[in-house]
Protein backbone atom coordinates (compact mmCIF):
# COMPACT_ATOMS: atom_id res chain seq x y z
CA UNK A 1 0.00 0.00 0.00
CA UNK A 2 1.37 3.38 -0.90
CA UNK A 3 0.82 6.59 1.04
CA UNK A 4 -2.31 7.76 -0.78
CA UNK A 5 -4.12 4.46 -0.25
CA UNK A 6 -3.38 4.50 3.47
CA UNK A 7 -4.49 8.12 3.74
CA UNK A 8 -7.70 7.45 1.82
CA UNK A 9 -8.53 4.39 3.93
CA UNK A 10 -7.82 6.06 7.26
CA UNK A 11 -9.72 9.22 6.24
CA UNK A 12 -12.83 7.34 5.16
CA UNK A 13 -12.92 5.16 8.28
CA UNK A 14 -12.30 8.16 10.53
CA UNK A 15 -14.98 10.17 8.75
CA UNK A 16 -17.53 7.43 9.40
CA UNK A 17 -16.55 7.07 13.03
CA UNK A 18 -16.58 10.85 13.53
CA UNK A 19 -20.08 11.30 12.17
CA UNK A 20 -21.32 8.21 14.01
CA UNK A 21 -20.13 9.25 17.45
CA UNK A 22 -20.81 12.89 16.75
CA UNK A 23 -24.44 12.15 15.95
CA UNK A 24 -24.98 9.66 18.76
CA UNK A 25 -24.04 11.74 21.75
CA UNK A 26 -25.70 15.04 20.75
CA UNK A 27 -28.82 12.98 19.99
CA UNK A 28 -28.83 11.74 23.59
CA UNK A 29 -28.49 15.30 24.82
CA UNK A 30 -31.22 16.57 22.52
CA UNK A 31 -33.59 13.81 23.60
CA UNK A 32 -32.96 14.65 27.22
CA UNK A 33 -33.55 18.35 26.71
CA UNK A 34 -36.74 17.77 24.71
CA UNK A 35 -38.15 15.40 27.32
CA UNK A 36 -37.39 17.87 30.11
CA UNK A 37 -38.95 20.70 28.14
CA UNK A 38 -42.06 18.63 27.44
CA UNK A 39 -42.55 17.70 31.08
CA UNK A 40 -42.05 21.29 32.18
CA UNK A 41 -44.54 22.44 29.54
CA UNK A 42 -47.04 19.88 30.83
CA UNK A 43 -46.59 21.22 34.35
CA UNK A 44 -46.81 24.88 33.37
CA UNK A 45 -48.64 25.42 30.07
CA UNK A 46 -48.51 29.20 30.59
CA UNK A 47 -44.74 29.24 30.23
CA UNK A 48 -44.79 27.11 27.10
CA UNK A 49 -43.87 30.01 24.83
CA UNK A 50 -40.70 30.83 26.75
CA UNK A 51 -39.82 27.17 27.12
CA UNK A 52 -40.29 26.53 23.41
CA UNK A 53 -38.10 29.44 22.40
CA UNK A 54 -35.32 28.49 24.79
CA UNK A 55 -35.68 24.87 23.71
CA UNK A 56 -35.21 25.76 20.05
CA UNK A 57 -32.13 27.83 20.76
CA UNK A 58 -30.69 25.08 22.94
CA UNK A 59 -31.48 22.41 20.37
CA UNK A 60 -29.74 24.36 17.65
CA UNK A 61 -26.71 24.78 19.92
CA UNK A 62 -26.62 21.02 20.50
CA UNK A 63 -27.21 20.42 16.83
CA UNK A 64 -24.18 22.51 15.98
CA UNK A 65 -22.00 20.07 17.95
CA UNK A 66 -23.12 17.30 15.63
CA UNK A 67 -22.58 19.66 12.70
CA UNK A 68 -18.97 20.27 13.80
CA UNK A 69 -18.32 16.53 13.53
CA UNK A 70 -20.10 16.46 10.17
CA UNK A 71 -17.92 19.31 8.89
CA UNK A 72 -14.80 17.47 9.98
CA UNK A 73 -15.86 14.28 8.22
CA UNK A 74 -16.76 16.26 5.08
CA UNK A 75 -13.30 17.85 5.13
CA UNK A 76 -11.75 14.38 5.56
CA UNK A 77 -13.61 13.01 2.57
CA UNK A 78 -13.88 15.87 0.08
CA UNK A 79 -11.14 18.35 0.99
CA UNK A 80 -8.50 16.28 2.72
CA UNK A 81 -5.37 18.40 3.16
CA UNK A 82 -3.03 15.41 3.56
CA UNK A 83 -4.41 13.72 0.46
CA UNK A 84 -3.97 16.92 -1.55
CA UNK A 85 -0.41 17.21 -0.23
CA UNK A 86 0.54 13.72 -1.39
CA UNK A 87 -1.24 14.04 -4.74
CA UNK A 88 0.68 17.25 -5.42
Amino acid at each position, binding site marked *: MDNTTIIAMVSIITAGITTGIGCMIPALGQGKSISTALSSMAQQPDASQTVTRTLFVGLA*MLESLAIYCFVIS*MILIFANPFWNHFIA
Partner: protein
Amino acid sequence: MELSPDETIFWQNGFITINLTLVTTWVLMFVLVLVSVLVTRKLRTDLKISRWQCILEMLVTGMNEQIKEVGLKKSEKFLGFIGTLFIFIAFANLCIIFPSYEPPTSSLSTTAALAICVFLATPIFGIAENGVLQYLKTFIEPTFIMLPFNIISEISRTLALAVRLFGNIMSGGLIVTILLSIAPLFFPVLMTVLGLITGIIQAYIFSILATVYIAAATEESDKKKSRRKDKANKLIVAET
Protein backbone atom coordinates in the same frame (compact mmCIF):
# COMPACT_ATOMS: atom_id res chain seq x y z
CA MET B 1 -17.79 17.85 -5.60
CA GLU B 2 -17.85 21.48 -4.52
CA LEU B 3 -18.02 22.20 -0.81
CA SER B 4 -18.66 25.93 -1.06
CA PRO B 5 -19.55 28.55 -3.68
CA ASP B 6 -16.03 29.93 -3.19
CA GLU B 7 -14.77 27.50 -5.79
CA THR B 8 -16.77 29.01 -8.65
CA ILE B 9 -14.47 31.78 -9.77
CA PHE B 10 -15.55 34.38 -12.30
CA TRP B 11 -12.55 36.68 -12.40
CA GLN B 12 -9.15 36.57 -10.77
CA ASN B 13 -6.28 39.02 -10.77
CA GLY B 14 -3.52 38.34 -8.27
CA PHE B 15 -4.84 38.81 -4.76
CA ILE B 16 -8.32 39.88 -5.83
CA THR B 17 -10.80 37.12 -6.63
CA ILE B 18 -14.44 37.53 -7.60
CA ASN B 19 -16.29 34.31 -6.91
CA LEU B 20 -19.90 33.21 -6.62
CA THR B 21 -20.04 34.04 -2.90
CA LEU B 22 -19.16 37.67 -3.50
CA VAL B 23 -21.56 38.04 -6.41
CA THR B 24 -24.47 36.46 -4.51
CA THR B 25 -23.76 38.57 -1.43
CA TRP B 26 -23.76 41.78 -3.45
CA VAL B 27 -26.95 40.83 -5.28
CA LEU B 28 -28.66 40.03 -1.95
CA MET B 29 -27.46 43.30 -0.45
CA PHE B 30 -28.68 45.19 -3.50
CA VAL B 31 -32.12 43.56 -3.34
CA LEU B 32 -32.46 44.21 0.40
CA VAL B 33 -31.42 47.84 0.12
CA LEU B 34 -33.61 48.44 -2.93
CA VAL B 35 -36.71 46.93 -1.31
CA SER B 36 -36.12 48.84 1.94
CA VAL B 37 -35.62 52.14 0.11
CA LEU B 38 -38.68 51.64 -2.08
CA VAL B 39 -40.87 50.71 0.89
CA THR B 40 -39.68 53.41 3.28
CA ARG B 41 -40.00 56.14 0.65
CA LYS B 42 -43.73 56.47 1.22
CA LEU B 43 -44.35 55.58 4.85
CA ARG B 44 -47.76 56.39 6.26
CA THR B 45 -49.24 56.57 9.72
CA ASP B 46 -52.89 56.16 8.65
CA LEU B 47 -55.04 53.24 9.57
CA LYS B 48 -54.47 51.75 6.13
CA ILE B 49 -50.82 51.07 5.41
CA SER B 50 -49.28 49.26 2.50
CA ARG B 51 -48.55 45.54 2.77
CA TRP B 52 -44.81 46.01 2.49
CA GLN B 53 -44.76 48.60 5.24
CA CYS B 54 -46.70 46.17 7.43
CA ILE B 55 -44.05 43.47 6.85
CA LEU B 56 -41.19 45.84 7.67
CA GLU B 57 -42.95 47.12 10.79
CA MET B 58 -43.55 43.58 11.99
CA LEU B 59 -39.87 42.75 11.43
CA VAL B 60 -38.56 45.82 13.24
CA THR B 61 -40.91 45.61 16.21
CA GLY B 62 -40.33 41.86 16.51
CA MET B 63 -36.56 42.28 16.55
CA ASN B 64 -36.88 45.15 19.05
CA GLU B 65 -38.90 42.93 21.38
CA GLN B 66 -36.45 40.05 21.08
CA ILE B 67 -33.49 42.32 21.86
CA LYS B 68 -35.35 43.73 24.87
CA GLU B 69 -36.12 40.25 26.15
CA VAL B 70 -32.43 39.37 26.23
CA GLY B 71 -31.83 42.31 28.52
CA LEU B 72 -30.71 45.28 26.43
CA LYS B 73 -32.96 48.10 27.57
CA LYS B 74 -32.14 50.62 24.83
CA SER B 75 -32.78 48.20 22.00
CA GLU B 76 -32.93 50.91 19.29
CA LYS B 77 -29.22 51.49 19.75
CA PHE B 78 -28.34 47.91 18.85
CA LEU B 79 -31.12 47.29 16.34
CA GLY B 80 -29.04 48.56 13.44
CA PHE B 81 -26.30 45.99 13.93
CA ILE B 82 -28.28 42.99 15.14
CA GLY B 83 -31.18 43.58 12.79
CA THR B 84 -28.84 43.77 9.82
CA LEU B 85 -27.24 40.48 10.79
CA PHE B 86 -30.62 38.79 11.18
CA ILE B 87 -32.18 40.12 7.98
CA PHE B 88 -29.13 39.36 5.85
CA ILE B 89 -28.65 35.80 7.15
CA ALA B 90 -32.36 34.99 7.04
CA PHE B 91 -32.74 36.33 3.50
CA ALA B 92 -29.60 34.53 2.33
CA ASN B 93 -30.84 31.26 3.81
CA LEU B 94 -34.42 31.59 2.62
CA CYS B 95 -33.43 32.14 -1.00
CA ILE B 96 -32.61 28.42 -1.35
CA ILE B 97 -36.14 28.04 -2.72
CA PHE B 98 -34.79 29.46 -5.97
CA PRO B 99 -33.24 26.77 -8.16
CA SER B 100 -29.48 26.75 -8.72
CA TYR B 101 -28.99 29.30 -5.95
CA GLU B 102 -26.07 28.73 -3.61
CA PRO B 103 -26.40 30.55 -0.29
CA PRO B 104 -23.34 32.71 0.49
CA THR B 105 -23.64 31.56 4.12
CA SER B 106 -22.53 28.09 3.02
CA SER B 107 -19.05 29.51 2.51
CA LEU B 108 -16.79 29.79 5.52
CA SER B 109 -15.50 33.19 4.39
CA THR B 110 -18.93 34.86 4.68
CA THR B 111 -19.73 33.38 8.07
CA ALA B 112 -16.24 34.17 9.36
CA ALA B 113 -16.69 37.77 8.24
CA LEU B 114 -20.03 37.99 10.06
CA ALA B 115 -18.53 36.42 13.18
CA ILE B 116 -15.60 38.86 13.09
CA CYS B 117 -18.15 41.69 12.92
CA VAL B 118 -19.66 40.38 16.16
CA PHE B 119 -16.17 39.92 17.63
CA LEU B 120 -15.40 43.61 16.95
CA ALA B 121 -18.84 44.96 17.82
CA THR B 122 -18.82 43.49 21.33
CA PRO B 123 -15.89 45.63 22.66
CA ILE B 124 -17.03 48.67 20.64
CA PHE B 125 -20.49 48.65 22.18
CA GLY B 126 -19.03 47.79 25.58
CA ILE B 127 -16.56 50.67 25.51
CA ALA B 128 -19.18 53.07 24.16
CA GLU B 129 -21.47 52.18 27.06
CA ASN B 130 -19.07 51.86 29.99
CA GLY B 131 -15.71 53.31 29.02
CA VAL B 132 -12.46 51.43 28.48
CA LEU B 133 -11.63 50.59 32.10
CA GLN B 134 -15.07 49.29 32.94
CA TYR B 135 -15.04 47.12 29.81
CA LEU B 136 -11.57 45.70 30.54
CA LYS B 137 -12.79 44.95 34.05
CA THR B 138 -15.26 42.42 32.66
CA PHE B 139 -12.27 40.26 31.68
CA ILE B 140 -11.19 39.79 35.30
CA GLU B 141 -14.68 38.92 36.53
CA PRO B 142 -15.28 37.11 38.86
CA THR B 143 -11.58 36.80 39.83
CA PHE B 144 -8.23 37.56 38.29
CA ILE B 145 -7.54 33.86 37.63
CA MET B 146 -10.27 33.82 34.99
CA LEU B 147 -8.43 36.27 32.71
CA PRO B 148 -6.95 33.71 30.25
CA PHE B 149 -10.21 31.77 30.13
CA ASN B 150 -12.19 34.91 29.36
CA ILE B 151 -9.83 35.74 26.50
CA ILE B 152 -10.00 32.17 25.17
CA SER B 153 -13.79 32.19 25.32
CA GLU B 154 -13.86 35.48 23.41
CA ILE B 155 -11.98 33.84 20.53
CA SER B 156 -13.56 30.39 20.67
CA ARG B 157 -17.10 31.72 20.63
CA THR B 158 -16.29 33.69 17.48
CA LEU B 159 -15.00 30.50 15.87
CA ALA B 160 -18.09 28.62 17.03
CA LEU B 161 -20.40 31.28 15.58
CA ALA B 162 -18.70 31.04 12.20
CA VAL B 163 -18.52 27.24 12.03
CA ARG B 164 -22.09 26.77 13.34
CA LEU B 165 -23.70 28.85 10.61
CA PHE B 166 -21.38 27.50 7.90
CA GLY B 167 -21.84 23.86 8.91
CA ASN B 168 -25.61 24.03 9.15
CA ILE B 169 -26.16 25.68 5.79
CA MET B 170 -23.42 23.75 3.99
CA SER B 171 -24.69 20.40 5.29
CA GLY B 172 -28.22 21.26 4.14
CA GLY B 173 -27.05 21.92 0.60
CA LEU B 174 -24.75 18.90 0.58
CA ILE B 175 -27.47 16.51 1.77
CA VAL B 176 -29.77 17.73 -1.02
CA THR B 177 -26.97 17.14 -3.54
CA ILE B 178 -26.30 13.62 -2.24
CA LEU B 179 -30.02 12.77 -2.10
CA LEU B 180 -30.48 13.95 -5.69
CA SER B 181 -28.30 11.06 -6.82
CA ILE B 182 -30.08 8.49 -4.61
CA ALA B 183 -33.76 9.49 -4.55
CA PRO B 184 -34.30 12.29 -7.05
CA LEU B 185 -38.06 12.66 -6.81
CA PHE B 186 -39.43 13.71 -3.42
CA PHE B 187 -36.76 13.65 -0.74
CA PRO B 188 -34.78 16.67 -1.98
CA VAL B 189 -37.96 18.76 -1.69
CA LEU B 190 -38.48 17.64 1.90
CA MET B 191 -34.86 18.32 2.76
CA THR B 192 -35.13 21.79 1.23
CA VAL B 193 -38.19 22.49 3.39
CA LEU B 194 -36.15 21.36 6.39
CA GLY B 195 -33.37 23.62 5.17
CA LEU B 196 -35.76 26.60 5.27
CA ILE B 197 -36.51 25.89 8.96
CA THR B 198 -32.83 25.42 9.74
CA GLY B 199 -31.96 28.62 7.91
CA ILE B 200 -34.43 30.74 9.88
CA ILE B 201 -33.44 29.14 13.20
CA GLN B 202 -29.74 29.63 12.47
CA ALA B 203 -30.33 33.29 11.58
CA TYR B 204 -32.26 33.71 14.83
CA ILE B 205 -29.55 31.98 16.83
CA PHE B 206 -26.73 33.96 15.25
CA SER B 207 -28.39 37.27 16.04
CA ILE B 208 -29.59 36.24 19.50
CA LEU B 209 -26.07 35.06 20.40
CA ALA B 210 -24.65 38.37 19.16
CA THR B 211 -27.21 40.12 21.36
CA VAL B 212 -26.27 38.01 24.36
CA TYR B 213 -22.56 38.77 23.88
CA ILE B 214 -23.23 42.50 23.51
CA ALA B 215 -25.52 42.41 26.54
CA ALA B 216 -22.78 40.73 28.58
CA ALA B 217 -20.33 43.44 27.57
CA THR B 218 -22.68 46.35 28.26
CA GLU B 219 -24.65 45.18 31.28
CA GLU B 220 -22.34 46.71 33.89
CA SER B 221 -23.47 50.25 33.16
CA ASP B 222 -27.11 49.37 33.74
CA LYS B 223 -26.25 48.06 37.19
CA LYS B 224 -24.30 51.18 37.93
CA LYS B 225 -27.13 53.35 36.69
CA SER B 226 -29.70 51.57 38.82
CA ARG B 227 -27.37 51.91 41.81
CA ARG B 228 -27.08 55.61 41.06
CA LYS B 229 -30.85 55.86 40.74
CA ASP B 230 -31.27 54.07 44.07
CA LYS B 231 -28.89 56.52 45.68
CA ALA B 232 -30.77 59.45 44.16
CA ASN B 233 -34.07 58.03 45.36
CA LYS B 234 -32.64 57.54 48.85
CA LEU B 235 -31.42 61.14 48.84
CA ILE B 236 -34.85 62.37 47.78
CA VAL B 237 -36.48 60.26 50.48
CA ALA B 238 -34.01 61.55 53.06
CA GLU B 239 -34.59 65.14 52.06
CA THR B 240 -38.34 64.94 52.24
